[in-house]
């Protein structure tokens, strides 16, 4: 549950005059916020796990170097360059 959904759920209670808030309504607020917090914690853990599983550059090679290597591979695989290399 996102915070925006939570605030929609609580709009009525938040617009009520504070001293008219009952104990039951107070606990409704706490309950909705607890659910929102549980949801946020789950999202946080999922994002952390996703971060761990995502591919990382090999040790010692930065993303920039990897990009350069990839560009060089393309260059060396170019037929014209290949034939030139063979002539050399």
């Amino acid at each position: 549950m996102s915070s925006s959904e939570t605030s929609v759920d609580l709009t009525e209670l938040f617009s009520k005059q504070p001293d008219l808030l009952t104990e039951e309504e107070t606990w409704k607020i706490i309950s909705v916020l607890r659910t929102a917090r549980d949801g946020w914690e789950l999202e946080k853990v999922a994002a952390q796990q996703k971060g761990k599983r995502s591919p990382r550059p090999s040790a010692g090679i930065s993303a920039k170097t990897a990009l350069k290597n990839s560009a060089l591979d393309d260059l060396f695989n170019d037929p014209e360059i290949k034939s030139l290399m063979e002539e050399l």
Partner: protein
Amino acid sequence: MFSKQLPTLQTYWDSTSLKAFLNCPRKYQYQIIEGWVPQQTALDLDFGIRYHACLERADRLRAAGADLTAQLSAATRQAMSEPEFENPSPQKNRFTLVRSVVWYLLHHANNMPKHLSPNHVELPFRFATELSYSGESIFLCGHMDGVVENMEGIFSLERKTTGKTLNSQYFDSFTPDPQITIYTLASKVVLHVPAKGVLLDACQTVVNFSAFDRRPIHRTPGQLEEFMRDLAHWLRNAVQYAEQNHWPMNEASCRICAFNRVCSKDPAVRDSFLQADFKKKFWNPLQERTSATRDSNNPHGAESSTPTA
């Protein structure tokens, strides 16, 4: 909080006043002596004061033996009992206040700060420095959120709300920091407890979530002595500025100052820019810390509002 003989000389200094003065005497003049605050500062302070009040309610109940259910109920009712902020932002408004209070109690449910006793919750303090002006002593003062004990020892408790990420960079920014040093000193001098520093209990409040972390910030006896030596130097400067009624601008601090848009104008037109962009809210470190702490009452001469710890 100001001298009876020299009305622009502050005789009760808290960390907010001292930080403003150390940052720039002109900023101190605008903010503390004349009571001008930018809108965002007013919201940050109001939000922090309400957050403190709600958790103080929970602290008092817990110190008296109440369980988490009672703390949650009382703190939530306290948070709900106040009207919406004057100029709320998406990060700081009545909803994010209630969320921060409830989430704090849930987050720390099994790891609440342990107060030394029920009397060690929310402690206003003041103590005299060695300095005086024409017979009037100059004091350090403030409000501790409590004195707590953990496995490492005794600490003054300080709760903070911030929009910043709670990482090492955030916690490292409190060393050096006058508030941490003054509170450590006060624990020793006023409360006579061997505090090792301040337990910083931080809450990051952003639009979609509130996050929490708590770390000890230490001060050594040598650091405390050094602070008192430096403080005497700075306060002597404050006396001199007050006597001359001239608060010089520290132009090295202007880039990150809210008063930049005033000080960057010609001196002849600065007042109109202050009136247009700022509001008057006098800071009175001696007043009890409630949401009404910051009102438009001029604190010059009003120094009997809070009892000494």
